[in-house]
């Protein structure tokens, strides 16, 4: 194969004592992107190795690419919806393809900035540490671009991505060692640093190119409820996703398609997804029962349809690195995310959306939940030891 020959010819330059030794991680990243490495179990062909000689065909690249594929329906819908919202707000007579094309042009810089900044930092850290570049950011970078308002200033986005990758991940050792979901760290950074660009009514609809007048406002359902206004969107609109909101998280249908893939392939934990929905639903029902104000009276299932609940539930709560790791812990972790998300939405006067904060909060508590779950196993074992000791004594 020609491509293989090219890599083989270049490889000596990038290995130890080669001309470009400093770029070895970068070379490895591109090489292993094109070809699954030829390493064998035990490190070398031949005798001596004791262990598992065969390995599963799955690797982290395969896992991450599955997540990216699962994100595609929401991404495509989001692009179309950007054009759709603009067309509605500015009373433009755009067809389907025009709307999609407009959304694509609007999304492209966001995705590029997210990937270039994030992967740039990842490559830099990998070179400094003499490690391989982890593919984790391929998923994270796309997710970040999907959960920001379409009007986000690109320099703010770049700052947020840099903050998320460095402070949210690399200081702990890189992908796999972080305790907060990096995509949500980026969003939280934007949210708290530049609140005027992240919430309110004027950030959700992109202005058409070459447009000179004032921006048109388009309130999200959560924003309307927050302000005590009646909901304009119907449940069906919110389910399909033809409402203003962050770039790609409005369509529950598209997100469910992704969820189906994640569950079918077993990449994401069904326990977490189910328990987030249960937690959110029960909290919603509780508020329905109290019914003290209009927000509490919103039907409980509306919470699944509004804001980032569905997206967070499917793509961010289920991040295996930052979620609880034990099966029992996953139930508790997911349930509390759902419950806190609805609680924050309804009772917190400061922020309209609670999902981001609920997941970040539970990210912090996930190790504690696991600790308690494992402690039960330890206690059971120690009890068995004690009984055995009594028996022999």
């Amino acid at each position: 194969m020609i491509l293989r020959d090219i890599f083989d010819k270049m490889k000596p330059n990038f290995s130890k004592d080669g001309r470009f030794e400093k770029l070895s991680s970068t070379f490895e990243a591109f090489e292993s992107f094109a070809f699954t490495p030829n390493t064998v179990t035990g490190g070398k062909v031949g005798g001596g190795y004791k262990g598992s000689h065969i390995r599963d065909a799955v690797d982290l690249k395969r896992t991450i690419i599955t997540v990216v594929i699962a994100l595609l329906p929401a991404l495509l819908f989001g692009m179309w919806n950007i054009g759709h919202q603009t067309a509605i707000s500015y009373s433009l007579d755009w067809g389907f393809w025009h709307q999609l094309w407009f959304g694509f042009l609007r999304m492209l810089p966001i995705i590029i900035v997210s990937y270039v900044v994030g992967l740039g930092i990842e490559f830099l850290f990998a070179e400094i540490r003499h490690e391989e570049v982890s593919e984790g950011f391929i998923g994270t970078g796309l997710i970040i671009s999907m959960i920001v308002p379409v009007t986000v200033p690109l320099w703010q986005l770049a700052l947020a991505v840099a903050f998320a990758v460095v402070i949210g991940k690399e200081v702990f050792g890189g992908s796999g060692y972080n305790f907060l979901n990096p995509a949500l760290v980026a969003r939280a950074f934007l949210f708290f640093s530049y609140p005027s660009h992240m919430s309110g009514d004027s950030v959700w609809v992109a202005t058409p190119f070459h447009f000179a007048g004032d921006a048109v406002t388009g309130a999200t359902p959560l924003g309307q409820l927050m302000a005590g206004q009646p909901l304009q969107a119907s449940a069906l609109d919110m389910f399909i996703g033809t409402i203003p909101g962050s770039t790609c998280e409005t369509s529950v249908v598209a997100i469910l398609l992704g969820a189906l893939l994640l569950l079918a392939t077993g990449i994401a934990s069904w326990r977490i997804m189910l328990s987030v929905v249960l937690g959110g639903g029960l909290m919603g029902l509780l508020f329905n029962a109290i019914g003290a104000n209009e927000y509490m009276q919103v039907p409980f299932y509306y919470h699944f349809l509004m804001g980032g609940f569905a997206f967070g539930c499917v793509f961010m709560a289920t991040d295996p690195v930052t979620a609880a790791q034990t099966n029992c812990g996953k139930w508790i972790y997911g349930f509390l995310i759902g419950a806190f998300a609805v609680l924050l939405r309804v009772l917190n006067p400061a922020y309209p959306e609670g999902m981001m904060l609920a997941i970040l909060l539970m990210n912090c508590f996930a190790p504690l939940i696991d600790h308690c779950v494992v402690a039960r196993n330890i206690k059971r074992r120690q009890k068995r030891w004690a009984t055995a000791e009594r028996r022999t004594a």
Partner: protein
Amino acid sequence: MNTTIIKKGLDICIPGTAERRVSDMRLTGCFAVKPTDYVGVKPRLLVAEGDPVLAGTPLFEDKSNAAARFTSPVSGTVKAIARGDKRALLAVVVEADSEQKSVQFQTSASTADGMRKTMIESGLWTLLRQRPFGIIPQADANPKAVFISAFDSSPLPVDIPFMLNGREQDFQAGIDILHTIAGTVHLSLQGGKDNGFLEKVQNAEIHHFQGPHPAGLTGTQIARIDPINKGETVWTVNAQDVATIGQLFSTGHYCPQRMVALCGPVVGNSQYYRTLSGASVEELTKQTTFNELSEPLSDFRLISGNVLSGTAIAKDGFLSTECDKVSIIPEGNYYDFMGWLRPNFRKFSFSRTFLSGFFKRKAESGKRKAFEFTFDTGKHGSDRPLFVTGEFEKLVPLDIYPMQLIKACIIGDIELMENLGIYEVEPEDLSLCEFADTSKTEIQAIIRNGLEKIRKELGL
């Protein structure tokens, strides 16, 4: 008949299981005893190159355990003493004489102490394994029980009842000896299968296990029958070695007979061979026809034991102790273009990220043979931190948290390891985790390091 059903686990169906056909090997060529097969043995050499030895003559002993004397499986001449880094002893190789002579051992002992003495002198003692740590027990060790598994659930399974055909009386005699020395003996058989004479073995508690691998591992069986508590020890013995023990006590001769299967996808005539422990694998592969390897495969690997926890041996190497089969699989040292992206029907994955994953259940149950998976030694990916959660829990039928235990071993926290159940596992019990792990971590080596750290701390 009570059968314990094991639900968690995975049967990896590699083509090339051995057919029930046996060839007797002539006892020619070289045989080796390797200290590297054992955990924690510090060998002291007792012979020199060129020395004549009989079957049963000690070749080396363990400096840290006086009970561990390693004896020659054949009579002949010491041909080579193989050494590795820092002159560490790797193997003592004995070239067999055409006529076999044996040391005559005292077998009239009827007390447990007398039997122990005979076992130690003849080298039979080194066939015992003590859990935790998988070491050879001390001379005065008193285990809680002895566990024997006559059920191989690992990939390319061998038929242990078939392998014991003709050794019925020796096997029963071996059980009797172990029963006298150690007390309770647990024999685990495969449920839902005809186990022949093994069902009627005396002086042992018979258990039946059914389910996917690791249902046949003693670690799984111990956990269900009588789990190991802190401070307790149990012994495990390979089923064929039980017959070897019985045989010595009836004849007085040390003759570590072994039925070994040569199997795997590249073997044309997968079958059994009757030889002795430590036999040269070259003698066996001479009898074998190999299938042509197709591109991009170019070489194959010989594994003494199963593909999940066995030891790779050179093509002119020797069988390890405890080995029931030699698994032969292709080396996977080739590049796979866009391997992470293509749907791929031929690659086997426990996850369902490959299209083949959706069909594997059917392929396993034999209803559908549309997908024959290819297996090789390729890692199929790069090393990463432990990333994905939840997959190990589906593969380990023990009451432990595998991920947490592995992490405790990595950080070397002895108290945490103890609390998380390290005493209940040997590396092989987590071999399926190592297989399925997305991050390609060498989990069995990590578990062994954890166990060794504790063993050294305890001064065993």
